């Protein structure tokens, strides 16, 4: 298998390249169209080339509030991220206790993963409506998104703890560490890098969630809702400029997480020396 690179390697590499092209096709199309001239529309042909629409993006739009929604989505993403990490770690640790009824909780988590998102939106909307509560992105929207991010977080935690060598914990206990000390000084540092993954999932799944926030965001739009609104009211490539911009922003976020991951690995490596 690991001998010379045969024909199959090149065929597969070609397939992979095609796939990447397919994945990036729309992203590239958006990127090109976001440089439309000032008279250009949302479709080809190009009508001149300019950075006009990026400039427009930073001005106030005729309708809506892109930056307000961006700030909300960012804040919501962070809230969801932190909650997902904390709750997933606690959940992951809980499952190691094999407590009675863990099966029920497990299927609850799986259920959360497979329930179509529109049901959550509809259900939470109805629930809040009937309880006479206001829907708001930071309450109902927040909760609805957690039903999507928590299962991901927990699945990662399961995968992590399944490979976790409990000898470390035993050693800590034998040395007289309390359960909390064991978690704080032994378990958390070991699973740390995976938590970055959980955090990343939590943030991005929230940041891009549309269906679950549709009926649960209340008066103020999150970014995906705003973009959806824009598709109904904006006829200019400013929409694509926004797409290009958010992609660039995503790159920055990934970069930051990658850096964090690298740093934490490096620190651990040093620690091991």
């Amino acid at each position, binding site marked *: 298998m690991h001998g010379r690179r045969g024909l199959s390697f090149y065929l597969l590499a070609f397939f992979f390249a095609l796939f990447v092209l397919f994945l990036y096709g729309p992203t590239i199309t958006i990127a090109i169209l976001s440089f439309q001239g000032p008279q250009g*529309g949302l479709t080809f042909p190009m009508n001149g080339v300019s950075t006009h629409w990026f400039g427009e993006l930073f001005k106030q739009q005729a309708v809506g509030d892109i930056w307000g929604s961006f700030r909300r989505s960012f804040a919501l993403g962070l809230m969801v991220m932190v909650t997902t990490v904390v709750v997933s770690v606690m959940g992951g640790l809980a499952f190691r206790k094999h407590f009675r009824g863990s099966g029920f909780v497990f299927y609850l988590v799986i259920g959360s993963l497979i329930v179509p998102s529109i049901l959550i939106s509809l259900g939470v909307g109805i629930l809040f409506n009937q309880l006479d509560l206001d829907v708001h992105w930071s309450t109902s929207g927040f909760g609805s998104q957690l039903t999507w991010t928590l299962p991901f977080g927990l699945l990662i935690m399961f995968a992590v703890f399944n490979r976790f060598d409990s000898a470390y914990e035993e050693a800590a206990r034998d040395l007289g560490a309390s359960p909390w000390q064991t978690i704080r000084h032994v378990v958390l540092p070991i699973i740390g890098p995976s938590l970055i993954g959980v955090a990343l999932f939590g943030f991005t799944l929230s940041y891009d969630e549309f269906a679950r926030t549709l009926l649960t965001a209340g008066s103020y739009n999150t970014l995906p809702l705003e973009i959806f609104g824009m598709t109904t*009211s904006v006829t200019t490539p400013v929409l694509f400029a926004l797409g290009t911009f958010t992609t660039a922003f995503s790159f920055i976020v990934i970069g930051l997480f990658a850096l964090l991951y690298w740093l934490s690995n490096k620190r651990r490596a040093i620690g091991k020396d």
Partner: protein
Amino acid sequence: MKSKTSNKAGSKYLNSKGTQRRTLMKGAAATVAAGTITGAPLIWAQNIKNVTLRQFGTGVSNLNDVANKVKEDLGFTLEMTALDSDSVTQRAATQPKSFDIADIEYWICKKVWPAGNLQAMDTSKIDNYDNIVGIFRNGKLNPDSVIAQGTAPHSVGFVDGPEGKEFVDEESGWMTLIPTIYNADTLGIRPDLIGREISTWAELLNPEFKGKASILDISSIGIMDAAMVCEAMGEISYGDKGNMTREEIDKTMAIFTEAKKNGQFRAFWKSFDESVNLMSSGEVVIQSMWSPAITAVRSKGIPCVYQPLKEGYRSWGGGLGLSKNLSGLELDAAYEYINWYLSGWVGGYLMRQGYYSAVPSTSKDFMSEDEWGYWFEGKESQGEIVNPQGVVLEKAGAVRDGGSFEERMGRVACWNAVMDENQYMVRKWNEFIAA
């Protein structure tokens, strides 16, 4: 909770608003507080600057420029949320606490008024009430006009009192919506790709345009387009298009479902923007369209015509409604806002986009003579016609399709409608979309 939200610039207002709102919720205490405030004009003038009104509506009229101008002219903050028309209906019907002012269409009003989330407005507090065009008051553009079928604005424009739930036919002094914007819609076509005269709604289902036609997927509007088409084809003669029987609905939907299955439609659209894109990219050459959407296509240098048809237009109108939760200072601010709305600046702004203002006489002061001549009187333009954003829409010598205000609004055949059998119609429409 409110104070945590949203942008920094507005947080000051939101804060004071948050407090106010909570106080107001307490009912009795709030009434006392509000009474004290309105009793003292000086304090009022200062306090009103701290008011924030939350308005929502479709992108058509929920313009940030309006909010900015309100801040400038009136001093208080207007927060705009633009939504698609489904979400607008939804919010008006189910989330009364999420807004102070609803910018909705009249057919939506007919649907959601009975939910009791809006309060009637006292017309004696509306300065320009007497100047509002007849369409919104007695239904008649001119004294001898015939009222078109469908949900005509005046028929859902008045209720029998401040707490009224029933619509009344006469000008009762209590208005559901203050009219702001309206227009007459017709088929938009690409003359370069069609190359012949189009004069009837029936052309929408002409097999010649197979795969190149489109229709609006908002049931209350789409069904009226469909009815105009079926009637023009001579397939169905309706008792009242605006209030169809189940049988008429079935027949109409059957004709359209068949056309859909034969591949007549390229796409359905739900928003202004989609219709513009479909038309300008050449995906669609004939579709029911809004006048400013046609202008938008044309401003990209693509030929597109707002085609007057012999059967007449399908018309729509929108207005501002007040949330039932408004009271005291905020209610005063809302009246202030509405009076300002009708005083001409917004009217001129909307007219220069191709809509009509409910009080044309005040809007005239905010338009140049040439603009007024082109947009309202149907005269040939003397110079370039530009929209409020400064984009050139027409060169000198252009004449507006469909002509003057009287010619357009005088030939309305039906209004967007909510019928008695609306729930049935909606289900049938849903089936048509799914078919």
